[in-house]
């Protein structure tokens, strides 16, 4: 029985040693980067804004009202520095967020550095160049038997464009206007255009008025917006959302499940998030009367005595 006793003794010794082993576990390694920030600079607005999240060691669903952060922007082209103001924004669900803002209009082709600094000196920053201004040339409509197209040509190639769309700003009235007819209703119908198609054509977009008219009437019908009314076209606004090159999403698409991974879609140094720059380049016009007639739109709201 000597061997069994030895085995028992050995087991007890191992148990004594192991029972003193550490049982604690610390799953949060800690992150030196202090902030994540999200937003963009644009010449199209007179106020710039960026949402700032402190990087913390615990997952709290409630954002604290106090944030240890100072946000400063510097126009690297002119040297102008602006300290941004924190707005404790309340989201529709009641949660608060820290959105810092500054009342200035970003300048075309200027480079800005946005720095978020903690009181201990830790900084996260992003440097972004606002793309140069581009403008559209609206070419005469090409009217054929089947199509009525209006070509739009950008005068310079943007680094990147997020999206493009044609917005038809319309009003409607019944075919016969009675004195008790309500006022016309105004509707904006936004039809997406493929940026890649325009880019491949040398940043030339072809607005297909006839197809778009079909989409507009379908939209009215689908949304039950006085489907029997005449549709008057006030104007067409064609927009290309021009951005800096860094705004092009990795992988080619804004897939939230892919881009949520920290660092994947980020230009923030010593932090996470994304700061973009861009503006909507737009062309606004109203086609000639004969073109509108050919397309199917009415020229404008009829003027005349109402029928009683």
């Amino acid at each position, binding site marked *: 029985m000597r061997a069994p006793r030895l085995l028992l003794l050995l087991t007890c010794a191992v148990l004594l040693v192991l029972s003193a082993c550490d*049982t604690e576990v610390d799953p949060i390694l800690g992150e030196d980067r202090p902030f994540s920030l999200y937003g963009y600079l644009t010449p199209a607005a007179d106020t710039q804004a960026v949402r700032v999240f402190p990087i913390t060691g615990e997952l709290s669903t409630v954002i604290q009202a106090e944030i240890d952060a100072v946000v400063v922007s510097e126009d690297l082209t002119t040297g102008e520095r602006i300290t941004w103001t924190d707005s404790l924004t309340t989201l529709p669900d009641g949660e608060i967020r820290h959105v810092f803002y500054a009342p200035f209009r970003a300048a075309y082709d200027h480079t800005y550095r946005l720095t978020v600094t903690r009181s201990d000196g830790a900084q996260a920053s992003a440097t972004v160049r606002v793309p140069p201004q581009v403008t559209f040339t609206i070419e005469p409509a090409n009217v054929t038997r089947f199509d009525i197209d209006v070509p739009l040509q950008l005068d310079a190639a943007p680094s990147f464009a997020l999206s493009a769309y044609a917005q038809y700003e319309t009003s409607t009235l019944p075919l016969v206007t009675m004195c008790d007819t309500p006022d016309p209703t105004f509707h904006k119908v936004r039809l997406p255009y493929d940026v890649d198609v325009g880019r491949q054509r040398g940043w030339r977009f072809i607005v297909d008025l006839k197809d778009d008219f079909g989409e507009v009437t379908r939209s009215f019908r689908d949304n039950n917006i006085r489907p029997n009314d005449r549709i008057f076209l006030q104007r067409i606004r064609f927009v290309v*959302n021009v951005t800096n090159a860094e705004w092009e999403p990795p992988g080619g698409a804004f897939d939230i499940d892919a881009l949520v991974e920290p660092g994947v879609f980020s230009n923030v140094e010593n932090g996470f998030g994304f700061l973009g720059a861009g503006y909507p380049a737009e062309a606004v016009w109203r086609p000639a009367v004969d073109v509108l007639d050919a397309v199917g739109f009415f020229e404008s709201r009829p003027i005349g005595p109402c029928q009683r």
Partner: protein
Amino acid sequence: MSSRHRLVLCFAILALLLAWASQAGASDVEGMAATLRGFVTDASDGQPIEGVNVVLDGGTGLIGGITDGDGFYAITRIPAGTYTVRISFIGYETQTPTLTLADGETRALSIELAPDEALMDELVVETERESGGARVTAGQQTIRPADIEVVPAPDVSADLVNYLTALPGVVATGDRGGQLFIRGGEPTHNLVLLDGMPVYQPFHVLGFYSAFPSDLLAKADVYAGGYGSQFSGRLSSVLDISTRNGNKKRYEGAISAAPFVSSVMVEGPVIRDVMSVMVSARKSVIEQAAALYIDEPLNYDFSDLFAKTHVKLSADHQASVSVLHTTDKGLLTNPASERTPEEIRWSNTVYGLRYLIVPRSLPILGEFLFSVSRLDTEIGPRDEPNRVSEVSGFNTEINLTYYAGATEVGYGFYLRAPELRTNLGGLYQNIDSGFKRLPKFGAYFEPDFAFGEHLKVRPGVAIQNIGNIGFHAEPRLRVVYERGLHQWSGAFGRYHQDLVGLNDRRDATNVFTAWTVPPNDRLPRATHALLGYRVTPRAELELSVEGFYKQMSDMSIGEWTSFPRLTTRVQPASGRAYGVDLRAEWRLPAFYAYVNYGWSNVRYTAQQETLELWYGSSTLDFRPPHDRRHQLNVVLSTNVAGFDVNMRWNYGAGLPYNRALGFDGFLLVDDFIDVFDAGDSRRVIYEEPYNGILPAYHRLDVSVDRTFEQKGGIDFMIQAGLINAYNRANLFALDLFTLERADQLPVIPTVGFKADF
């Protein structure tokens, strides 16, 4: 060659093999050879005895066979003549009838062996060698009730699962959750059969219990890999459990009470020597008993009911009907957690018929199985569960064993039609949930060749056709070479899994498993290879070592996301596991020790589409959360002053888990959004998946019991024990979002009482 052509070719080959087997059987009948076959049972209770030597001595040499789990033997190709038949098994009185066999005769000889009390001491040593901790052959280990009963448990009745978790290569989620990972596979990769009936989730929510109390069992065969062609449909392992038939001689029973579970079991003859019935019921009493003195929430409730009737219809026909019903419910998260507690509930309902037939004129044992198995799982509020998964269906099998001298040929057919209903409530968003049916049929052929006295080779093939997925063939091979004290064994096989069980391993408290059809009609598949050596240097000592390699493909695992949520999509993954198991078993009359050590290395390769973007590679290798590198189990049992003292110590190296660097918010800037109003999400900044290692797990369980024999045939047993004797704070789950941890059970004293009558 198209899939259809391969199917036709394979079935044609199989048909030829089956025709050969039938023809070979017929030639035995028509030729000069005689056949002797029958059943050997225990004269005291009518139970079949496995491993009985049946040897014919005709003066010119010995011809013999060994009984199987049904106590059946068949000896073929016997020259006509007069023989002395020696029927012997250690612990039983040997019988030596004499008989004369004529040319072409098939003789039935069923024997009842009477236990020999004088040989009981010898029995202690020898029968343990029929099973035992180190007795592993090509991945297969047989477990008998006596093996299970030396492992301490918080109950006076032993349970199979406590032995399983003491095996090397088996990783459990701990003392709750009921999940077993065998040699790198997932819990849903394990096939569990109870008397041939599949049981989808037989392990109770509290890890000390399964639907298999040792009182019910005749034996359990654990195939940790490399299993034969008769088993199909799972990737990792097979647990093939046989229950006893019930006492055909007299009524007996047992009743027990303990702080965790109380139970009652009754068995006896309905018609003496012909028909028996056995009923067992267990119910947890944790909330009524253990919770009174354990300062920890114990929200677990489970029960199981098993009933079986067995009837000898004639000398050549037997049938049994079995029913199993289990229920489980429990809260695996900390009730004090900030997260909404989610109660998980599941229930198994299984019933089946097993019919054994021995044709009068053919040396064949036929088995017909029909069963229906159903598993209902739900999580969330009782009246309005958040997620539901149901799997049910029938299984019909015909298994035939043809005896041709030293060669046994197994072959058979099956037809199954599982039906699946899932409502995943947003979990696994790219899985097509709802109702599914996956009919499948197949056949297998597996001859077991004996080359001389030492070498056995069992090649096999299983051919299956699964729903719209098509057909596939699975080759298998098992080789055993035994010489003197030494045994070398090896196995190889390819396996497919037809039903997929999805479980998100990022949250250990989430044991909800959604059963579904394979995504994209791609069947998960695996290849096993293993090689082992066993030696018995002394009668009381046995040592074994076995190395294994397992390759898995087309698995489905949860996608990773930095959003703080567990509802995601599934991603394809492959995996491989390799390792080595070392076992030593030492048996002395008053001392038993079983020590095993398992080393394994498991890696999965994720194939999530976004990996290229995240890590610059289209795949990512990682250690899955069940990759336990080192595992050591020590089971000791001895008798001190008339008390049986059992001890088990279990050590497991720390498991991988996800660590975070920190937390921030995420706002998708995909357009000129309104930065003031746009909705965002909190985000977890993770390290690469499963780079952290949890603290090691170890626990000591001790039990002391003594049986008091009373007049009138009633035995009382009293047991006292300590679970987690040195109160190790073993981690069960860590909520990364709230940093709350849930530990395994603390030190628990138990006292149990059992009466056998």
